[in-house]
């Protein structure tokens, strides 16, 4: 995964660690009410997962870090703006923590949650 070399040896950062960073940043982002497990039968897309590695996928090809987020958005918010700000928040937090640039963040809106409309 993310690698750096110091005078004493290498530092390896696992995709799971990056996924956890991205997961927490996502949940602090306004308009997101949860993450949905990726690769699941469509009918179940509304299930909210609490397992970072399931709603976030991280790829690293030796040069670039790419992150995919599967989010559930609060119904009634402007979805594109929410998605945009999630991407920004996650990029900021991950880059700050890792000190490595994030190449691409793809936001998949897996579902909408409708809070009790009375």
């Amino acid at each position, binding site marked *: 995964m993310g690698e750096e070399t110091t005078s004493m040896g290498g530092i390896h950062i696992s995709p799971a660690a990056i996924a956890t960073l991205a997961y927490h940043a996502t*949940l602090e982002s*306004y308009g997101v009410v949860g993450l949905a497990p990726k690769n699941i039968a469509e009918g179940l897309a509304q299930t909210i997962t609490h397992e970072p590695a399931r709603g976030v996928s991280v790829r690293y090809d030796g040069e670039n870090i790419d992150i995919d987020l599967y989010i559930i958005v609060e119904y*009634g*918010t*402007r979805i594109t703006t929410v998605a945009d700000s999630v991407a920004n*928040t996650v990029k900021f937090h991950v880059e700050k923590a890792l000190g490595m640039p994030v*190449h691409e963040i793809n936001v998949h809106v897996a579902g909408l949650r409708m809070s009790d409309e009375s």
Partner: protein
Amino acid sequence: MSVDSARMEWMRSRPFDGQALKHLVEAGLTWLKTNQQTVNSLNVFPVPDGDTGTNMMLTMTSAWNEIKNSGEKHAGKMALLVAQGALMGARGNSGVILSQLWRGFARGVQENELIDAALMVRALAEARDTAYKGVVKPVEGTILTVAKDLATAAESALIETQDTIAILERCVPAANESVNRTPDLLPVLKQAGVVDSGGKGLFFILEGMLRHIQCLPLDAPLVTVQPLSSLNFDNAMLGVEEGQDYEVVVDFFPNDKFELHKFYGKLEAMGTSIQVGEGEGMYRMHIHLPVEKRYEPIDYIMTIGTITKVAMENLVAQMDEINAKSKGTKLELAKIEPNQIGVVVVSPGPGLSRIFASLGVAAIVEGGQTMNPSTQEILAAFENLPTDKVIILPNNKNIVMASNQAKEVTVKNVQVVPSKSVPQGLAAMLVHDPDGDLEAIAGKMTKALASVKTGEITRATRSVEIDGVKVQEGQVIALLDGKLVASTQSVEESMLNLLHKAKAEENELVTLIYGEDVSRGEADRIVDKVREIYPSLEMEVQDGGQPNYQFIVSIE
């Protein structure tokens, strides 16, 4: 500028209808727009950026556009229109939250033709609840907290009064207090010494509504006096308006009966870009005026105090000079043959563009710290070069990404040499060879990046504490390879601190590239100081013309 108490008495205890709500929305928007820059300035790092104020203003503008031609009298229906407009135009995080607040408010009143005190309080609570539903882990110390505190203030006010205006009168100061408490809840705000920008924006919207009811003006920000040290007229040039041809700065000691409001009022009738500063009893006033009024502020200030100094400048002549300078000399870019390597650089200033051109770059994209060029602009710069081999030097860490994207979308063979600063870019250009092998040259250039240290000297746009260094707004700060190393009162001190931290004495060559707001004479003076302290060091001085940074320093 006084509260129309008769009108207020008449309005008290009356529920308001759709049209009244419409006026309140307009007032909130107008006041937010007036104070937009104040909100924008609450960003969290001392380099100019941040646009919360603009995002919230655009969101409110979208809401206003939805209702401005509506004659709807039904308050609930009007509120739904506002919510709809805010949703459609929500910009940025704060804009989304603002639109959620409106959505909740509208949901609270949608069935009602008129809004009375009890209903207003319920709707504010609904607004709060709706906003909090939009996030799993609400961060306190933000606009959410302010929405919560003002709903609470409204609820407790309702125990004592059934008057809508009285409730608003309680909500506005409560929101203000809540905004002022945000640094206690959110450490990052405290460290930066600011309050939350979104919360402040929400406060301005509410205050605008109250000011409208009180018949107070909404088009001019509240008058303020800044400390003399933080007055900065450099940027005032950017705001030159047509017909405002003269800049006048007057230093004076006012008589005993100095009334700031009256003073501003008089000045506003004469010109624009008014700033007033004070230090140890002395006041400094800055204004832009049309030609025929250029002596009026001086005559007026004579009547209210003792003038110690007057400075007057012809802005039109200055602007012409600036324009002539930037357009003046045409750049001689390197002519590239097919099969040679063409280098594209991002340059933050006209002088730097000339330096890069003299080193043999084939294309230049203008941009830098506060204006990052898009992928598209970078692409456009090299698409027409008659070669397939291209090297990009972004010269800023924020532009590396866009450069990489440009590499991906083009069919040309592109290498990005990730230079994070101008000195790195210059160092890379020194090892460039247009006839070499693309990958080998790019590799050589990338290696050269590490051969220089980069110093930057700029002014803090507000007070902050970063990397353990305390910075006051307006102070000069020095950054070494992106890390804050000194904050001082003068550019000279910053420069000496910077060179000390960079261990300049162990290096051979120091190049000082001065920015657009430093004169050649000032640069020479500082160079002389540096020579005194580092006699064995070789020094070069270049006119970079970059904005914001007084000096960019290359140490190698």
